[in-house]
């Protein structure tokens, strides 16, 4: 598991048009993490703790703006958030399959 160290502060951007990344391990508030794109790497500072498998904003995202993962809309923001924020069902909404 030579790559464990490299994985510890990384998040994956699945599609180039996405505005969220998926944490590849637990990430802590204040840490800097590597954003892994298909063709490059960038950096982001975490504004909140983000658990493995959960999502963080890789740009500032406005209220009612689409949350994009896999290059598709998975919901919309209930509030505006900054890059590095935690995104989950507390601040994004999606009507499908909920009622």
């Amino acid at each position: 598991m030579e790559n464990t160290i490299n994985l510890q502060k990384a998040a994956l951007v699945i599609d180039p048009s996405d505005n969220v990344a998926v944490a590849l391990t637990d990430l802590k508030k204040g840490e800097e993490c590597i954003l892994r794109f298909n063709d490059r790497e960038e950096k982001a500072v975490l504004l909140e703790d983000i658990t493995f498998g959960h999502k963080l904003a890789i740009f500032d995202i406005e209220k009612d703006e689409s949350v994009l993962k896999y290059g598709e809309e998975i919901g919309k923001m209930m509030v505006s958030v900054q890059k590095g924020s935690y995104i989950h069902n507390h601040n994004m909404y999606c009507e499908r399959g909920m009622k």
Partner: protein
Amino acid sequence: MTDTFMGFRRKNGTVGVRNQIAIIPSVFCSAKVAERIAYQVPGSVYFRHPVGCSQVGEDLEVTAKTLIAIGKNPNFAGVVVVGLGCERFSPYELAEGIAPANKMLETVVIQSEGDSLAAIQKGSKIAREMQQIASRQVREEFPVSELMIGLNCGGSDMTSGLIANPALGIASDKLVSQGGSSILSEITELIGTEDILARRAINEEVAENIRETIYRTEEKLRRQTQNSSNKDRTHLISTGNYAGGLSSVVEKSLGSMKKSGSAPFSGVIQYGHQPDQKGLFLLDSPGHDGEVSTGEAAAGAQIILFPTGRGTPTGFPGVPVIKITGNPKTYTKMRENIDINAGQVLTGDKSLEQMGHEIYQEILEVASGKHVKAEVLGHDEQFCVTRLP
């Protein structure tokens, strides 16, 4: 040069990857007799189910079509139908339905034999003889275009949509590009992907059918949840899904959809039906692990591919279920149940492409006779016939 596998030739032109005898009850009342017959003849498999009587209309029809189709699945060299005698779905109708597959076929009816012990004895003798005949058949080489795989998943976590499902999609594409068949289902877990899937349809009619199938399922769920006495029972997404980082059904669906790769959709098939051509199809079934595998085996799938992030041990009688996990921790914990560790992509040891290729190679090996872990351990929980309201 197309890839090949070693399978069993059936008289009706289909090819099996296993050569077992199926013991199929026509009604739940004969389930134990069917089970006991299978115990007398190790190597045969039985299909316990709770249906076959006190049903009406389309619900009964789906049960009938599904049980017939399971009997016709090419993995079975022979079938022993076990009836009670007074059930609504008659054992003779079940046997008549299987007959066109032109395989070894006999019917045992408990009320005609006298009692359950007499029926077990008669059925065991028949199954024993069938198995001896089947044991003489040898595998022959066939192109992979003779294979149909069922795509299913359960106990998903974020690694399923991120790694295991996309890797499986690569394997599925490889099979379909060589003329083989693949079936995507779990319509409840495709909500929100209708337009993306419809764009991959071979024509507008299929596109419309895909959209309709998903909308219809969503509408049915809306009706079901409207009168729920417990408000916590209305969300389609589970607590475990939320805990794993999935924030919406659509997010889950996008990951689920990845199992089908990028091949074009040739059509939508109804539960209990078989596609009339080769290619990638969408099967209309709710996203219950067992109901999906059963619908896919009924469609003619000889192998099921099953990504599981959190890990499930289940299998299907007579149809190998290849388990794949994208979560390296789950693989370590459930090594005895999981066949492929796609978590190697997460740890950076393999690329998604390499993983897809590895899954494809495993399909060919399993098709040629390699037993999956669920088979060796006797897991057979996934046989569940879907019900209509």
